[in-house]
């Protein structure tokens, strides 16, 4: 049986492989941005499953990313030499470490998810924010993970292919879930928990499941990041990072995978573009602080968006889809 979604996933992975072959010619600066886009797509699309499709406002996605980044980095640093004699060995070690990082993050998602899903709305946001800070605090004090000095020395395994293959996988998983009858439970929980229970849906199971799957991909994104930058620091996974991802989800439109992916692209390019703009000689001096500080522009963007399009850029598109 030929399934369109699976074929698309396969095509996307092949395309990643082909494009990856040409990526050697790209300047390191642009390459950095492109990989950043891929990682942000994974983060935003996976957070969208929690915040957008299941309606659980999580502010701790960078915490899960940190768990994945540190566990996979620790694995390749500790055990990389075991298989590290051949290219094939290091690559498979790297992929295993990515998946292990994702699983570690998923486990963290499970342990955080079960107790914290007793609260909802704003309170859940606060609990997940607290979790993010706890993870950061633990890493800052964990000597084997480099504590405040950060952790470095990983080989640069992450390339165009792995980043975007995992991005495609994330999008595939999220879409396959929310478009299936099985995944309709996520949407039901978001719209009305009482009605969802009355329709025989175990709301707790779906909430925890969304957390676990979201955390898994955040962990993978963390592993990709760690093996691209080759240096990770606890401050890189603070609440501002979580906030960045939440902004992508809200700007793109909660519950629209296409929207959040586009927002991930835009919001990765935007700070770089602003950096370029702020060095233009013709720019009036009073504009300079704004372009130099992207957070001001972020908040401005969000305010304008909330006033004009509360559902996000692509918020309502998915609802009109014909075929399910």
């Amino acid at each position, binding site marked *: 049986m030929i399934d369109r979604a699976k074929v698309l996933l396969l095509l996307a992975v092949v395309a990643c492989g082909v494009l990856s072959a040409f990526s050697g010619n790209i300047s390191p600066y642009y390459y950095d941005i492109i990989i950043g886009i891929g990682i942000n797509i994974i983060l935003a699309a996976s957070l969208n499953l929690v915040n957008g499709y299941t309606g659980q406002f999580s502010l701790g996605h960078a915490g899960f990313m940190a768990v994945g980044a540190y566990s996979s980095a620790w694995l390749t640093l500790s055990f990389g030499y075991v298989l590290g004699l051949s290219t094939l060995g290091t690559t498979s070690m790297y992929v295993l470490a990515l998946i292990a990082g994702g699983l570690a993050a998923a486990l963290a998602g499970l342990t955080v998810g079960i107790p914290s899903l007793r609260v909802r709305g704003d309170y859940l946001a606060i609990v997940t924010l607290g979790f993010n800070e706890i993870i950061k605090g633990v890493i800052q004090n964990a000597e084997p993970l480099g504590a405040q000095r950060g952790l470095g020395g990983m080989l640069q395994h992450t390339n165009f292919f792995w980043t975007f293959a995992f991005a495609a996988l994330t999008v595939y998983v999220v879409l396959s879930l929310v478009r299936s009858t099985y995944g*309709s439970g996520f*949407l039901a929980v978001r*719209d009305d928990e009482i*009605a969802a*229970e*009355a329709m025989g849906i175990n709301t707790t199971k779906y909430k925890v499941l969304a957390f676990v799957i979201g955390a898994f991909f955040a962990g993978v994104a963390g592993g990709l990041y760690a093996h691209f930058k080759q240096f990770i620091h606890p401050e890189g996974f603070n609440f501002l990072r979580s906030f960045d991802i939440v902004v992508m989800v809200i700007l793109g439109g909660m519950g629209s995978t296409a929207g959040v992916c586009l927002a991930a692209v835009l919001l990765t390019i935007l700070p770089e573009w602003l950096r370029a703009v702020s060095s233009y000689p013709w720019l009036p001096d009073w504009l300079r602080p704004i372009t130099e500080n992207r957070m001001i522009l972020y908040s401005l963007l969000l305010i304008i968006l909330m006033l004009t399009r509360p559902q996000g850029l692509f918020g309502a598109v998915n609802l009109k889809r014909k075929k399910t």
Partner: protein
Amino acid sequence: MTAPLLQLDAVTMQFGGLRCVSDFSFFVGESELVGLIGPNGAGKTTVFNLITGVYRPTAGKIAFAGKSVIGHRPYRITARGIARTFQNTRLFSSLSVFDNVRTACNMHLRHGISHALLRASGFVREESEIESSIIELLEIFGLAAERDFSCRALPYGDQRRLEIVRALATRPKLLLLDEPAAGMNPTEKIELMKLIRFTQEKFGLAVLLVEHDMRVVMGICERITVLDYGKKIAEGTPDEIRHDPKVIAAYLGKEADA
């Protein structure tokens, strides 16, 4: 006599000092259409919430098909075969008509998450089975043409109907309808009465109907229970209820005074 489908035995529900339902005993037999009426605040909806597991009774027993349902989460009770609609419609507002019904098919899925992710042939087959069963249901209730509409775009009466369809998709043995005629005009109410009767006969269901509108209840119910201030004050056929002095005093009498 075998045990009735739904049996409430001396059920009491107390919220702090307020006794919403007190010592309430009641039953619904297989494929019976029973009405539960009472003035505002009599505790009708509380009884619904007790049966469906939203509240846990302070005292008393609730058994469905011979087994206690007390302490079960609402989704487990739905899985046992009790489905409900809500007094204020609670459709999944961002979903289409079709998807609203589809959420109710979730609990009957034979396969789990791996199936949805791997999308093997079994998954495709099951999804299309579900799709055709939903379309069949929608066709029976005249909503098939609206399948891709947002449920918010439906007229009020259709929204109520969709809630019934959605409840039926859980394949219940007992359907609880909480004031289905609320906010309907007389024509819609007549349609609704026909619809409830039709549903009960077509699917062989037991139906428990909570209603304000006397005409609706009297017109279709085989048996009626009257609740006032959390207590059962009368039980009988529509005719008996209509002539019961206590009912007239508690319910109809007040309407006549006003």
